[in-house]
């Protein structure tokens, strides 16, 4: 069995960085022209399937947002100008800029400084159809030394472009769990820009199961030294689905850290996943530590996983920088080991896939979500690996 390790680009330069990794964040749509599809940041995306989401027209649709917000947390709406004044990282591509431009208003979730929440903050977006596109812009602000856990759940059917800014102030700790469990016809593009404060700790979990096309980009930068970001992703692509997760961590401050692990399984004809992990270590970012990893498990013929880790290093004065990428089918040696203990081939495959994902699932720390994801993995397995052969087979 072959393990393909994607060649990564590594460049060490002393001065200016000029590359697709280094987009200048801006709300100005003119700075984000309509892509042709050949650009580095668009070349994996099936642009035609995004429909009107890349067009500069105000989408007419709305999506129903249900928020369970504990006492002490403010959920309000502001204008785009007021939102821009809150700070945070501006859009890094056209989709983010369009979402910000056309969102009817900006939802702001404000967790005041020193608030230690034990309750989960829960926001559900429930799509009602794909007839009209929807643009949303949300700002999540976690005040100094606050700690909070947020669960953002997307479901239903939608044509949805969202822009989320997360501003994590100094010393705050936040767990952000996003679950994209869309209906089969949903098209979802999302950009989540996370600004990590001095000594703040952010854990982001991103789970994508449903949808026709899901393309998310998570962009991380630091507003002070010592910030820590962990990004975990889990995805399961079925026949015809395009699931694309893009990450960009900009180590623009010293002694910051990032740890990224995304794992996916693919099954069915033209199931397509894309994972892009871009890490930029700027000259100023001495003493940083970064690691990123993507693993894909291909469960059937006809599926394709693209996996591209990029590491751009402008200073050698760092604690560590590493990456790994592997795309493979079942490991024959693992299956042999399990089967040599009497476990049937299907049961062995089931154990391996559950184990593959459980490494991530058990880190989420929200029992309800963990249980649900294990059930989801089981349901996905039933479609292929565990499927009983039909009478004609």
């Amino acid at each position, binding site marked *: 069995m072959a393990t393909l390790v994607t060649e990564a680009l590594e460049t060490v330069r002393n001065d200016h960085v000029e590359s697709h990794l280094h987009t200048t964040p801006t709300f100005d749509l003119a700075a984000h022209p309509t892509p042709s599809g050949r650009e580095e940041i668009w070349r994996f995306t099936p642009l035609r399937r995004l429909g009107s989401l890349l067009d500069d027209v105000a989408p007419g649709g709305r999506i129903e947002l249900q928020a369970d917000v504990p006492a002490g947390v403010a959920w309000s709406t502001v204008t785009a100008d007021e939102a821009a004044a809150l700070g945070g990282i501006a859009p890094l591509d056209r989709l983010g800029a369009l979402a910000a431009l056309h969102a009817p208003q900006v939802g702001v979730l404000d967790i005041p400084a020193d608030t230690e929440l034990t309750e989960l903050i829960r926001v559900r977006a429930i799509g009602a159809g794909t007839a009209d596109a929807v643009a949303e812009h949300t700002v999540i602000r976690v005040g100094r030394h606050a700690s909070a856990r947020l669960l953002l759940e997307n479901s239903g059917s939608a044509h949805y472009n969202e822009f989320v800014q997360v501003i994590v102030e100094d010393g705050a700790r936040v767990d952000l769990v996003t679950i994209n469990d869309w209906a089969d016809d949903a098209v979802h593009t999302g950009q989540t820009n996370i600004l990590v404060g001095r000594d703040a700790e952010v854990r982001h979990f991103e789970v994508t199961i449903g949808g026709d096309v899901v393309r998310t980009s998570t962009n991380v930068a630091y507003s002070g030294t010592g910030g820590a970001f962990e990004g975990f992703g889990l995805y399961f692509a079925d026949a015809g689905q395009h699931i694309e997760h893009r990450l960009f961590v900009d180590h623009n401050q010293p002694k910051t850290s990032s740890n990224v692990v995304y794992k996916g399984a693919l099954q069915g004809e033209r199931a397509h996943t894309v994972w892009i992990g871009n890490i930029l270590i700027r000259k100023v970012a001495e003493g940083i530590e970064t690691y990123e990893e993507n693993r894909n498990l291909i469960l059937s013929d006809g599926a394709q996983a693209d996996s591209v880790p990029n590491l751009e290093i402008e200073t050698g004065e760092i604690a560590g920088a590493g990456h790994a990428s592997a795309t493979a089918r079942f*490991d*024959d*040696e*693992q299956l*042999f*080991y*399990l*089967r*040599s*203990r*009497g*476990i*049937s*081939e299907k*049961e*062995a495959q089931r*154990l*391996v896939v*559950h*184990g*593959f*994902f*459980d*490494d991530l699932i058990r880190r989420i720390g929200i029992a309800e979500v963990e249980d649900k994801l294990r059930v989801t993995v089981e349901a996905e397995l039933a479609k292929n690996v565990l499927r009983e052969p039909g009478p004609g087979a």
Partner: protein
Amino acid sequence: MSKLEIKDLQVQVATEDGPKQILKGVTLTIADGETHAIMGPNGSGKSTLAYSVAGHPKYEVTGGSVLLDGEEVLEMSVDERARAGLFLAMQYPVEVPGVSVANFLRTAKTAIDGEAPKLRTWVKDVNKALGDLNLDATFSHRSVNEGFSGGEKKRHEIAQLELLDPKVAILDETDSGLDIDALKVVSEGVNRFRGQPGKGVLLITHYTRILRYIQPDHVHVFVDGRVAESGGAELADELEANGYDKYLVAAR
């Protein structure tokens, strides 16, 4: 009752230069309750014998037969062989990330017995088996073989042997890489297993060291894909004194 009969077993593997024959007609019978040691130099095909009997897909059987209590093992899938009563303790146990030892052991036991073990006694049995091999209670929460030391992997293999309780156990270089204390602990586990009536053991080793703790009924010298000589426990002493040279010369 348990009897493993290997008759004229011939096995090849695929190489870049085409198929290469590794086993050139192995005949060996492990009768009810017997322990046999197979000793031989590196590259003689000892491990190939172990993996072929267990059914590893890398090895292609081109001739011969393997009977467990009269049933043809070679016609069974890997998991069927295990359920029929064969167990292979591997030299290099495989990591299975994210699958806990507890989950793995329970799944295997359920598969072997055809029903889930009784929860209360099972947990006690697992803790005892792990404890007997100096593996502490937290061990069952770890992922199978992931981050285990060499010694932990081997002790985990023998814990499985005791819990799954097969008819015939093949131990592939279980002694390699163990310090003397771990070797004693592992040997005690094997001796507990074969202390039960009717259990067969095929002990594959390069060194005589483990035979001080596990007394074999028969010793076979394995050279160039076949049994070159068979004898009693005294044959191991001779190998200890004189090495494999005389057999290697004869095989050329």
